[in-house]
């Protein structure tokens, strides 16, 4: 793993990137959260297909989908597209 640059002297001669954006916890943007009801889920993976934030995770074919709440932005596409109404959007707790 490359060290993050501390001063301009550490900058590379050409602007290449070192890290992925995965450390950005975009889940903090969210005001509503998707909750999957596995009883209703048919594992069609439509929610996985349409999540713009790669926050519906399915390990392998046959598994149930899980939400990555560190990155899910709460757009609600998954709930809107789920043909079995297995996903509900719930309000985040007020702090």
């Amino acid at each position, binding site marked *: 793993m490359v060290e*993050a*640059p501390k001063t301009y002297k550490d900058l590379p001669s050409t*602007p290449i*990137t*070192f*890290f*992925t*954006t*995965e*450390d*950005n*916890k*975009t889940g903090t*943007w*969210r005001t509503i959260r998707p909750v999957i009801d596995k009883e209703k889920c*048919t*594992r*069609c*993976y439509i929610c*996985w*297909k*349409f999540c*713009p*934030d*790669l*926050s519906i995770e*399915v390990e392998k*074919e*046959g598994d149930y989908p899980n939400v*990555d709440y*560190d*990155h899910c*932005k*709460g*757009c*609600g*596409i998954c*709930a*809107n*597209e789920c043909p079995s109404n297995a996903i509900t*959007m719930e309000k985040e707790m007020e702090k």
Partner: protein
Amino acid sequence: MVNIPKFTIPKEEYVCKGHSACPGCGTPLALRYTLKALGKRTVLNIPAGCGGVILGVWPSYALKVPVVDNAFECTAAVADGIRAGFDVLGVEDAYVVGWAGDGGTVDIGLQALSAAVDRNANIIYIMLDNEAYMNTGIQKSGCTPIGAWTTTTPVADEKGWNTSPKKRIMEMLVANGIVYGATVNVAFPEDFIARLREAKDIKGTKFIHVLAPCTPGWRIDPKKSIEVARLATQTGIFPLYKVENGRYSLTKEIKNRKPVREYLMLQGRFRHLKEEAINQIQKIVDEEYARLLKKIKDTNE
């Protein structure tokens, strides 16, 4: 035997979490599907626009493939340059993609694209059409449809909204002699991936026109983003078709086209439209659709 549920698109992901697109944005989906179709030996050339900006701030990046951040006017030229370099090095198994927004294609990058088609550059050119200059705050582009509100076509009076039709980019390129062109929509991922897989190994310039919603720009509820995009095709406003060496064909048959009203009324950018204007838009869409069917008929005889 028990049926094991299946993925309908490839499992591999080349887009990382933590990118900064707005909730419900269609652009990261288009990137996901494109890279699922082309795989990791792909180089993207992206100019200014949301497609480049949402990928992150140095030193972090949201794609697992190399990207050249090129100047606005020259996406197709830079892509062709990378291709030429690969050819010299003998790299044959990598795809070179120009990826620009609608503004970066039909307005700012048009001459570089037309020159690439003229040379029949061996690249895939993907236009991410969200129907305005979104990254700079929703200014009208050559792809903004009739009737739409934008910040430069404000709805102050009856005729404040955009009154010019979308530029016919596909027809420009077909007239230019492009070997392959197709329209795809983020609401139809399987079709999206099928088109790219079909295009990727054709020699010459391939043009892919992607429709992708922008939630703040279209004034839509983020959760409706895919629903709205799907309606664009179901109403015939954005038909899915391809053109191979001048021969047109539909890639998604729509049996009973839905009224355009259903598409328009879900979006704040069209909400000012009155009955008469909606009827006018319906008429334009019907005519355009008939023109497309005629082209299909004429080029297949």
